[in-house]
Each structure stands twice: as structure tokens, then as C-alpha cells.
């Protein structure tokens, strides 16, 4: 008996070693070039800042973290609220939330319509949604920039129609950033909603109508509850990249309408305050993690409610 157990154990360890060797290169690469650097950044956030960028290694300081919220007045050395940072935080959260809501309002009807098409047509519709998703984000942002610029087609059409006499400044506004976020992340909303609608049992809808429910009642009480996991997944998938957006606000918001990503980058460029930049990065990471936890709780709770 014991020899069989031993043999099984040896086989299991050999098998285990083989599995470890197989996945080691992928895991090592990610640890070296993604997880590890995050840990280094955490360390940098509690160091004193170097005179010409970088940090004074070994000189522990919480300035990076306190600078997120307060800064020293350059004239009288008193502590004042770092309102520039807080305004950018608030703008990021606001823009990300509104962009999520807007993509939800456009993405849900779109996903529903596609999911109710005949099977052949459905995959063609989904290809149409997928292509922009895999298309270069910078190019798509450029496309919006071209559209909104003072010499762009939108202004030209408005002038031609006689609605305005000189180009309207649309670029470099919060509105332009919002439009850009909605435009680039819309496919991320449609994909998961479509996936959960595709599995929906339309017999429930039929039962609803048999019981004299109206179209809107069927929508609110049958369709939406049954694709809730997809709605939550889509919202998280849009919110996370939107709050961490860097390219979209840089191209469409110009220098004034920054989001958190641009504020972080600034600390490693002109700002030369690496500890503050590291602390801001960790703040962003915490917001993203909280959003993910809400998502995981939301989706697992759903499964329990249905008995798995």
C-alpha cells in the first residue's frame, strides 16, 4: 500500500516540477517587468525626493504621500491644500463615471439588438464591434481630435449650415475628453453585455408577455436582471481604463484638462517629484483595486443567488 502511495507521490512531485518549469518563464517575465516594479514604486513613494528627479535612496520620508493632499506654500512655508491635485482627482473620477454611464446607455441597447439577431448576422455584428476594440487607441483618439479640431469637419459643417460663424473651440475641453473616453471604450461595454445576453433564456420573456407585461416591464424586470453580471462587468471594464486614461486626456484635453494619469506622468517629467508620482500611482492602483473587488463581490453574489 505504502509503496503505491510513495510512487504516486513521486509522480506527483515530478509532475509538479514539470508544471513549474513550464510556467516559470511567463511568470518570471511578469514578475520582473510588471509586479516587481510596482513593489519598487511602493518603496520609492516613502523616500525623500532627489534634487534633480529620482529619489534620495535610504532617506525615508512621507512627503510623497502628504504631497498628494497638502503642499508647502513656496512663500511663507505654511501647509496648504494641494487643490490642483484634488481637482484632477475629482475630474478623473467624474469623467470616468460619466463615461461609464454613457457607454452603458449606448452599449446595452446595442448589445441587446445584436444578441437578438439571427445567428449568422450576429457574428458579423460582433466583428464590427471587435475591430475598433483592437484598433490602435492612439489612432482612434487622433480620429476624434481631427473631428473636433477648429479646421475639422464638425466645425466646417456647422459653419456651412450657418449655425456658427467662426470655429467653435471643442478640442481641449472636458467634453472632448469625455467624448474620447466614450468613443474608445464603448466596445469594452458591448462585449460582456452581449456575452451574458447571448446565454439568456428568451422563454422568460415570452412568459412575461403571456402574463400581459409591457415591453418596458419585460425590459426592466426580466432582461436587465438576467444580464446584470454582464452590465457590471462592462461597467468595470470601462471604468478601470477610463480612470487610468493617459493618452485620451493628453491628446484631447491638452495641458489644462489633465486626468490622474497625466498628473502622475508630470511628476516624472517637469514636476521632478518621483515620490509624489509614486504615491499618486498607488492611489490610482487602490481605486482600480476597489472597483475590481466590487466587481468580484457583485458577480460571485449573483452566482450564489442562482444556486451556482
Amino acid at each position, binding site marked *: 500500500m505504502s509503496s503505491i502511495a510513495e510512487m504516486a507521490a513521486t509522480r506527483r512531485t515530478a509532475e*509538479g516540477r514539470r*508544471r513549474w518549469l*513550464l*510556467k516559470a*518563464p*511567463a*511568470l518570471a*517575465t*511578469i514578475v520582473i*517587468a*510588471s509586479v516587481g*516594479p*510596482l513593489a*519598487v*514604486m511602493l518603496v520609492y513613494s516613502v523616500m525623500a525626493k532627489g534634487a534633480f528627479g*529620482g529619489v534620495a535612496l535610504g532617506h525615508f520620508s512621507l512627503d510623497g504621500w502628504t504631497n498628494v493632499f497638502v503642499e508647502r506654500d513656496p512663500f511663507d512655508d505654511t501647509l496648504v491644500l494641494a487643490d490642483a491635485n484634488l481637482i484632477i482627482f475629482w475630474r478623473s473620477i467624474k469623467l470616468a463615471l460619466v463615461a461609464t454611464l454613457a457607454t452603458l446607455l*449606448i*452599449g446595452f*441597447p*446595442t448589445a441587446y*439588438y445584436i444578441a437578438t439577431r439571427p445567428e449568422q448576422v450576429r457574428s458579423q*455584428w460582433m*466583428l*464590427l*464591434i*471587435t*475591430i*475598433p476594440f*483592437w*484598433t*490602435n*487607441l*492612439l*489612432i482612434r483618439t*487622433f480620429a*476624434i*481630435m*481631427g473631428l473636433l*479640431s477648429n479646421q*475639422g469637419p464638425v466645425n*466646417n459643417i456647422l459653419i456651412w449650415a450657418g449655425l456658427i460663424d467662426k470655429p467653435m473651440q471643442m478640442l481641449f475641453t472636458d467634453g472632448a475628453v469625455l467624448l474620447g473616453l466614450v*468613443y474608445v471604450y464603448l466596445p469594452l461595454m*458591448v462585449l460582456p453585455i452581449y456575452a451574458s445576453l447571448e446565454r439568456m433564456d428568451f422563454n422568460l*420573456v415570452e412568459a412575461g408577455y403571456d402574463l400581459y407585461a409591457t*415591453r418596458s416591464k419585460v425590459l426592466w424586470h426580466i432582461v436587465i436582471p438576467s444580464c446584470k453580471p454582464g452590465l457590471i462587468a462592462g461597467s468595470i471594464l470601462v471604468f478601470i*481604463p477610463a*480612470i*487610468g486614461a*493617459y*493618452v485620451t486626456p*493628453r*491628446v484631447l484635453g491638452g495641458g489644462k484638462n489633465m486626468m490622474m*494619469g497625466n498628473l*502622475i*506622468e508630470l511628476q*516624472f517629467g517637469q514636476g521632478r517629484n*518621483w515620490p509624489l508620482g509614486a504615491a499618486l*500611482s498607488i492611489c490610482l492602483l487602490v481605486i*482600480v483595486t476597489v472597483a*475590481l473587488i466590487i466587481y468580484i463581490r457583485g458577480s460571485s453574489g449573483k452566482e450564489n443567488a442562482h444556486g451556482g
Partner: protein
Amino acid sequence: MAASQHAFDLKAQPGFSIIARLAIVALYLPILILVVFAFNATSSLGVWGGFSFDWFVKAWHNDLIINAALFSLFLATVAGVLATVMATMAAIAMTRTDAYRGQLVSYALINQPLIVPEIVTAISLLIVFAAVKSATGYSGTGYLVLAHTAFCIPFAYLPIRARLEGMDLTLETAAADLYADPWKAFLHVTLPRLAPGIVAGFMLAFVISLDDVVITDLVKSGGQETLPTYMLGQIRRDMTPEVNAAATMLLVPSILLVTAVHLINRKK
């Protein structure tokens, strides 16, 4: 036809078809306009001045654009191949096994680059690579290859794992019963059936590397411009349709590859 018009459509919701159609138009119209103006005869990005290939010719003779495009292709190929090989190995190790301790950690690690905002990864790499650069003096393409490989792994991993999960084990068991050694069984039985997943994984990794701008822009050293970072650098200058032409050249391979992946997956 007449009968179906009168029948009650269970699945219809008022206005949804219009929203869906408008959404598709809105997704493509800006890109279409960008591509159309690449063919503009004048230097305007808003007024149509006739059809011409001038801007493509100009972009083709612009060494900065061509070198950036070649470097983009080089980086995407190297990082794509490395990421696909590593992701294939990891997927084989992590699927078709009983749940065991550490598997969840491995899975979380593989998907980690998907979760962290790109700017945060870019900044943390900037910090680490700056330290390594000043310690070793090395400032070659190794940093970009490493960074690109890392964030391409989860994209290569997804279709390969999906393909593995859909495969049944009978043939491999049969090969083992016939005394094929594990390596031979893998080469002649598993690999051919896994191939569509590996090809799809490579294509996605390639596209993701080709498209990256944030991480590349912060990690690159001098002379390591990719097509996206070159384009980002052009924003503040007076933009001409030359940038549109460069963008169009970048769009075409991405769209072709994604359509190919779609067709491969559908054949399954």
C-alpha cells in the same frame, strides 16, 4: 413577409435597432474620416481638396516614419513570439490539471498586466529601468522587448487556454498508451490541434505590441521610436495628412489580423 410584419416580435425593444446602428456608424465614421483625409490633395485635415497619394509617398520617403514602422514591426515580432511561446508553455502547465495550491496565484500573475493601469506600469518600469540603466550602462532594445513581452503574455494566453480547455484528452492518452514519449506526443498530437489557438494568441500579442504607446513612450531610449510614439510626438506640431497616412499604414495590418483571428475562431 407581410405575415412577419404583423407578428409580435418577442425580442424587439423600441429604439434599440436605431441605437445599435448609430453606434456602429459612430465607431467607424471618425476612423473613416481620418483615412479619407490621408488621401487629401491639400494639407488640410478638414477641407477636401481632391484625391491624391502624395501624403503616402511623402510618409514613405520620411526616414523617421519608415524607421519607426520597421522598429514597431521588429518589436511586435520579437515580443509576440516570446510571449506566445511562454504563454503556450504556461497554458499547458495550468490547464487540464486538478486545482492545486498556487494555481490561483499563477493565474492572477498571468492576468496582472491586464488589471494595472498602463500609466502605472509604465512609470514603475521607468523607475526600475532608470536604475538598471545607470548601474549597467546598457540602454539597448532589451528593456522594450522585456516590457512588451510581459504585457503581451495575458493576451497570447487567453485564446491558447480557451483552445486547450476545449480539447479532449483521448488522443493524447492513446498516444501515451502506444508508448509515445511525452515530447513526441506533444509534438505530433497536442501541438497540431492547439495550433489555431497559438496562431490567434500570437496575432493578438502582435497587435497589442504594435498598438502600445504609453509604456513604450516612457521606457524607450533615444533612437527607439515606434510608429505610435512618433505619432504622439507629432501632436503639438502642425499636423498634416502625413500623420493620417502613417496612421492608415498602422491600421491596415491590425484590422487584417483581427479579422483573421475572428475567422480562425469561427472555424472551430
